[in-house]
């Protein structure tokens, strides 16, 4: 006789646990992994051999957006998309590009220079906060170009901006992804077109 009651009780416990789990998960920050493909730039290749070091800070780069009350709201993981972008852009800019983990590896590869990009700042503007009908992303980079001996050739700041409009059936995640992909394309365009115009790089290229 007790069996049906116990079954109902067990079901109620399970339902309660599921509801609690749902509530707890609803309170956590949502995660956005930036996804997108980047075209190869149509630029003239420079006769250079460049080693690239992607530091862990770039590989695992994530930005946390907080609500107005200080609660963790959205976690944006863009490290891997940055690496995909540089892997598409750099081989189009230089004759030879090798990915290395350390400066010693770069010396072994007998390259002209070592390139190490760093993300300094990431900013996000959501329509709910700005009251504009666009998602906006700003990213500030520190681009470092050094010799295999570790001497600085150039160290310059590059900023990129991307926006995407709100749409009726577009989720916040899609909006953030869209704006970040536009910002990454902006980085690729300004980096590939302005690289040789950076004064220190220009001087180094003349003396090479």
């Amino acid at each position, binding site marked *: 006789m007790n069996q049906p009651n116990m079954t109902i009780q067990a079901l109620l416990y399970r339902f309660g646990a599921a509801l609690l789990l749902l509530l707890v998960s609803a309170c956590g920050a949502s995660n956005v992994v930036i996804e997108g493909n980047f075209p190869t730039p*149509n*630029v*003239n290749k420079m006769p250079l051999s460049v080693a690239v070091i992607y530091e862990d800070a770039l590989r695992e780069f994530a930005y946390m957006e907080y609500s107005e009350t200080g609660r963790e709201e959205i976690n944006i993981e863009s490290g891997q998309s940055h690496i995909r972008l540089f892997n598409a852009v750099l081989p189009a800019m230089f004759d030879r590009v090798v990915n290395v983990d350390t400066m010693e590896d770069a010396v072994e590869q007998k390259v002209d220079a070592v390139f190490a990009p760093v993300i300094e700042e990431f900013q996000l503007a959501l329509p709910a906060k700005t009251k504009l009908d666009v998602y906006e992303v700003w990213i500030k980079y520190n681009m470092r170009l050094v010799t295999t001996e570790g001497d600085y050739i150039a160290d310059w700041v590059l900023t990129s*901006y991307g926006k995407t*409009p709100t749409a009726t059936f577009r989720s916040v995640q899609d909006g953030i992804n869209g704006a970040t992909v536009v910002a990454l394309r902006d980085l*690729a*365009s*300004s980096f590939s*077109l302005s690289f040789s115009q950076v004064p220190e790089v220009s001087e180094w290229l003349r003396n090479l």
Partner: protein
Amino acid sequence: MAKKPLDRGTQEGINMSTIKKAQIVNVGVAFFIASILAACTSTTVDEFRQGETGIETDESVVILGRRQASDYETDSGFVECVGDRMQRGENAISVVPEQEFIDSMFPWFEPRTAPLRTRDLEQLMAEDVVANKMNDYGIRYIVWVDGFTETSGRTGSISCTVGPAGGGCFGFGTWEDDANFNARVWDVGSLKNVGTINADATGQSYLPALVIPIPLLARVEANACSRLAIQLKDFVNGS
């Protein structure tokens, strides 16, 4: 078992019920048509020609949306709509899809790097990689579409309730939509701006709600797209 014939009163009841239903349907249809007519749009198209135009069968056009403004960007859906319509019907024109063109021209037509004036295009065409790609696509004209749809004058209110017995909405809302787009046509051969076409469509939308909200939308963007595409097709063909 044989069916019992209906008495006169019951037959009249059924007939009256059928007539009433038909009347309700007719009134509903009339109301719906009247509402659609009420939600119609008015569209104005202006053309300003600055040079001769014409296009060969092996040449094509690319339509690009302007995305430099800080507070809005030209909807890619609108750009696609204009392109699709230009490729249809009599004197159809070959149109290169916007995203395909931007990707293959990367990084020269990104929001930050895209040419804003024809002399910027002249500088851009001096780059071999750009000139070769343009040639591969057979681009004769670049059409820059710039604009947006604005909603204003929202009035009325609708309240919806949901209870154990069901739910429903009651109220009335109305607003005005204004789609204003202009298209600048650049001749890639002469590197000149050969004309500008402006399409402005306005319309009033209504949202009456009697249990179910019935949106009666003014299709301003669709109308602006259709009229702009027709005018652009004629303009590019030189007619």
